[in-house]
């Protein structure tokens, strides 16, 4: 027995086991980032949220242009920022589509409704002449009147808007007092107040809301401006937070059971090399999770399934190599020579086999969107990492094991 080598092997083994336990198992109360998987970004399907695909459609008033879609995205972004959503996604897809993803909001359907409202504000005279529009608006804030308790939205016009508004109210009061000015939102009359005196300060207020929330929503719409094109929902997927955490929980349980079964099977069938393959598999798991975290890969439900399946496939390279190792030992080679020849002969097969799976992943990435792309990325990362752990790491571990002289019986290597 070689003492130094034995200590080396035990330390490597301990390190890998500790790292994988820290990566998976929680229960370290004061440390918020343990387990390491807490650092992973979770997709909408795992933490709840809404994924919606909007399509810009032509209307008699406005045809869709590239510029219009770009402006619409800016408006959407503006509105979303006011919801206080963490890490929203706003993405253009093709010429006319916009993908929006909002996670962790209380009423996603309501939010989507607000999001695609045109929000076109107009002040019109009784004769139907437009005085000012949302374009002339500088700010809109909801407030509660401290005395009456009435909810209102206070408007501040831009200098240009203030001038136009002043002119119109001057004109109105000069011709005939008590004229009305209509306030329209998306063509609907919100209010029809009387003008008692010219308003020259550039400030106006709208009252008559049921709640402060309603006033807030209107204020947000007004502040973010009008959508230059009409947006329609072509796809919407809402996942409640209950289902999200449920799915995550079940997948983790299934993953641990599946992994446990694989580990037991590998030791049961391949003995000493199987143990080394298990260490490599645990290292593979930790490495892949680390790469996911570093690349900020968003974990979706199919992504997790893909990762778990890759655990099953990652041992494949080892199985190929160990079967080869057995043959070489039976052919009468020494242990060390058998390890080297086994790895060398098996490598070509492992390489070709993994390349084709990478090809499949590339097709998925090229043609897929959203979750399917996520699946393709997780699959590819898994394949590349497993080539490293299953080939390089296992080989090194096997040599280390051979060096310790702990296992002399070649039967334990499958001979």
């Amino acid at each position, binding site marked *: 027995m070689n003492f130094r080598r034995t200590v080396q092997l035990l330390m490597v083994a301990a390190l890998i086991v500790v790292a994988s336990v820290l990566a998976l198992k929680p229960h370290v109360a004061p440390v918020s980032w343990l387990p390491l998987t807490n650092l992973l970004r979770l997709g909408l399907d795992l933490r709840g949220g809404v994924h919606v695909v909007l399509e810009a459609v032509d209307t008699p008033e406005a045809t869709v242009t590239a510029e219009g879609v770009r402006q619409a995205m800016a408006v959407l972004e503006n509105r979303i920022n006011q919801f206080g959503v963490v890490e929203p996604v706003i993405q253009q897809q093709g010429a006319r589509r916009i993908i929006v993803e909002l996670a962790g909001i209380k009423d996603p359907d309501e939010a989507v409704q607000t999001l695609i409202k045109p929000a076109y504000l107009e002040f019109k005279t009784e004769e139907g002449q437009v005085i000012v529009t949302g374009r002339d608006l500088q700010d809109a804030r909801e407030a509660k009147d401290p005395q009456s308790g009435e909810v209102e939205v206070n408007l501040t016009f831009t200098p240009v808007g203030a001038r136009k508004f002043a002119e119109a109210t001057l004109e109105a009061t000069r011709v005939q007092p008590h004229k009305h000015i209509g306030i329209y939102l998306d063509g609907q009359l919100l209010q029809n107040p009387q003008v008692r005196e010219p308003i020259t300060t550039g400030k106006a207020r709208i009252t008559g809301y049921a709640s402060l929330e309603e006033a807030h929503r209107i204020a947000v719409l007004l502040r973010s401006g009008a959508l230059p094109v009409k947006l329609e929902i072509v796809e919407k997927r809402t996942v409640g937070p209950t289902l999200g955490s449920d799915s995550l929980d079940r997948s983790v349980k299934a993953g641990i059971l*599946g992994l446990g079964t694989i580990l037991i*099977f590998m030791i049961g069938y391949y003995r000493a090399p199987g143990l080394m393959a298990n260490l490599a598999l645990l290292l593979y798991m930790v490495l892949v999770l680390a790469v996911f975290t570093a690349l900020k890969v968003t974990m979706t439900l199919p992504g997790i399934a893909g990762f778990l399946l890759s655990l099953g*496939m990652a041992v494949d390279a080892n199985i190929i190599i160990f079967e080869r190792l057995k043959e070489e030992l039976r052919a009468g080679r020494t242990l060390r020579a058998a390890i080297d020849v086994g790895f060398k002969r098996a490598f070509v*097969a492992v390489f070709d086999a993994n390349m084709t799976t990478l090809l*499949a992943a590339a097709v998925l990435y090229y043609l897929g969107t959203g979750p399917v792309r996520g*699946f393709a990325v997780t699959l590819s990362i898994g394949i590349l990492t497993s080539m490293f752990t299953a080939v390089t790491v296992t080989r090194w571990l096997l040599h280390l094991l051979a060096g310790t002289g702990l296992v002399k019986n070649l039967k334990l290597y499958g001979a």
Partner: protein
Amino acid sequence: MALRPHFIHLRRYWYALSLLVILPGLVALLWHKVHDGRFLNWGIDFTGGSLIELRFHRAVELPEIRNVLARYGLEAAEVRQSGPADFLIRTRELTEEEGRAIIGDLDRQLGGATLLRNERVGAKIGSELAAKALTALFLGLILMGIYITVRFEFKQGVAAVVALLHDVLVTVGLLALFWIPVDSSFVPAILTVIGYSINDTIIIFDRIRENMRHIRKGETLEDVVNASLWQTLARSINTVLTVLFMLLALYFLGGSTLRHFILTMLIGVVSGCYSSICNASPVWVDLKLRERRRPQVRPARA
């Protein structure tokens, strides 16, 4: 040597077994096309429509849900239980207002409900996805064929693609036979199956390539291929086992959302393992033998 069936000599039986699984599936596909107007049980991802999943706070019976839906003229809706207190409702595409009204009604009138999922897919998006799925499938098959042709030879590429088509037909056929819902996860599932199956085939082809270099006198092509299959058999079985462990754990413990994805993979992985051993190499042998017959004819013509 112990009793070892000769894989290649038995190939007619393997082909027959494949057909025995594929033919009922094809019949089911056509039967459903005639009776239901569609080959497969396409989900809303492909057809367009709305899907609402709710968790009720008290025990709720199916007719109660149907009663509420009937008020909206949704008698044709598909309602099924997806968990102890969970129900899945699939309808035509609902507008935002309709969707909200129905969920609100179900919540108020059936003792409270938590919204688990609410999905709405336009018909246009659905048909685009179907087109993409087909493109992905064919692109995947062609690329695999090309890769094998480059790394091995053309006839092996053809044999491998035949084996992959076998997996696609088995999977699609069984999906039709058992009328399993097919959603957007179908595309990644079938492509992963293809990637996995070709993986298996390559390992075997690699071994055949190696053994052909040291071919002994009197050894026929059939014998070399048979020996290669036996040499890689333990690996083929062990690899499919480790993947099956994980798939079965996910099938029984994983959530309902992924169940169809996992089921598709389960069928595909088993079929992939079978086709790599019992279809790919035997088909290649058949192609090879045909090629050898030709030179014997040529001198006669000359």
